[in-house]
């Protein structure tokens, strides 16, 4: 029978991180890019938790709380900026952001 080991979780988090990273590279909508970032951060959380479970200690789980708090702070800042752009041009696509060149 299969036994779900730590490696499985680490592989899953690596896959999640890659999905987030490539999503970040190819998508053009600022909100979707933002969700990709969240996916990457949660992949990090999964790594921390599974390693913490593997070593039988609590440090990694505490690290997750810090990551969550930082991610929440970044959501606040990011959405503020996106809203301020949306007011100007009613689109959240980064393609229209082409004023600066050179």
């Amino acid at each position, binding site marked *: 029978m299969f036994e779900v080991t730590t490696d499985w979780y680490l592989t899953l988090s690596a896959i999640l991180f890659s999905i987030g990273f490539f999503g970040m590279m190819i998508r053009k909508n600022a909100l979707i890019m*933002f969700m990709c970032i969240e996916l990457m951060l949660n992949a990090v959380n999964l790594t921390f938790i599974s390693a913490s479970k*593997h*070593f039988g200690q609590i440090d990694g789980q505490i*690290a997750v709380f810090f990551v969550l708090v930082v991610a929440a702070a970044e959501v606040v800042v990011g959405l503020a900026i996106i809203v301020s752009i949306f007011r100007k041009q009613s689109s959240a696509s980064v393609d229209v952001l082409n004023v600066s060149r050179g």
Partner: protein
Amino acid sequence: MILPRKSKYYVAAFALLGTLFSLAPLVIQWANYTSPIYAFENSFVVDKFSIILKGLFILITYLTFLLSINFIESDKYYQGEYYYLLLSSLLGALIVSSSRDLLTIFIGIELASTPMFLLSGWKKGDRKSNEGAIKFFLLGVLSASLILYGFSLLYGLSGKLVFSEISSHLLSASLANSPVVLLSAILVISGIGFKISVVPFHSWAPDTYEGAPLPVTAYLSVSSKATGFVALIILLTKVFAGSGSSWGIILVIISGLTMTLGNLVALQQNNPVRLLAYSSISQAGFILAPIAISGITGDYQDGIFASVTYLIIYAFMNLGAFLSVHLFSNYAGSTNFYEWGGVARKSPLAGVLTTVFFFSLAGIPPLGGWFAKFVVFRSLLGSANSIGIALGVVGAINAVIALVYYARISKVIWMDEPKSINEEKIFQFENPLKVVGVFTVLITFVSGIFPGIFSYLGEVSSIFFGN
């Protein structure tokens, strides 16, 4: 936030006084220093290295406040929040310079950069400012998640968060050159590469610098960059010290590319802020070079000494350069410096300051920039390593190219004929800005003429590396 609009200058005065007084504990710590003090289970340290860098960060923030006072009052900016956010960013920088574990350094980096996302979009109605802010934000959080994934891999390997325990675990299990550690090092380097804007992670810098209010740009190009470098130095030497030969090669390539590309693009700019953005990208290549070589040779002390010296001198001369751009673009009302013909005749003081800063950035003796370049080249050529010498040659060629565009601005403001003579217009040079100019120019001269004051840094970096 609660004060009426007219009395907002209390906030500025309070922030200025607070920043100045926060230097006092540093002086006391320096005077009573005996050995590094560890706190919070070895995750926070007070040693001479961190005291010097804290002093640097506090001084930079103080000068940025002085730059900001008139600028922030002159337009419809939010004033109270402005000072609060800059102070938060300062706190982050201070935490980074003392941190000795993965979580502390991550919180420090984020605390230093998150307020800057907001500040770079401080001109709310301006499309360029919004665009710069969103680019900076998206790449900033991308870099944060890259750094974090690198950290989580390290934790997964060692089960430790404190640097000393991680590196001793990596050494004892002879994991220092395992693929996972290298992947983690690459993730951390590319994440911090965004913060210090080295090629190929530099694309946000010119747009963000152009859109942000000018004092914020000055702060970004000096303090944010310094924070990134300090985090990089701490991580590479405290955690990845055993795998130096691998990340050394990567950093050498990045450093060479950064110097060259930054310079070549800066040559074609006519907007002074974009010019300074590309010039600061190329300067980042110079700061990175000694660290890169020290990874290959293993002589971290010398590398840290050269990088930190360059970083300190660069900080002051670059702040000064942004001050002069601020003065002249205000007066000329143009963001194309080819139209600044003869503006220096209007205010010789500002003209002389500008010439000093730009020549110092170019590395002309006896100014500070010359000593900074000298230290870097000494470290590169003294490494007696063919890669180091090759990087030194690339740096020397770049130093010559850089002279072209630095000298061009000085030539335009002194020698070109004025395009439109407007005798009525008064050249505004407010007192706080004069303080910034005189202070930075003093540091630029003193560090070039009496470089002996930096020799103590050699001792300091040995303390840093010894513990």
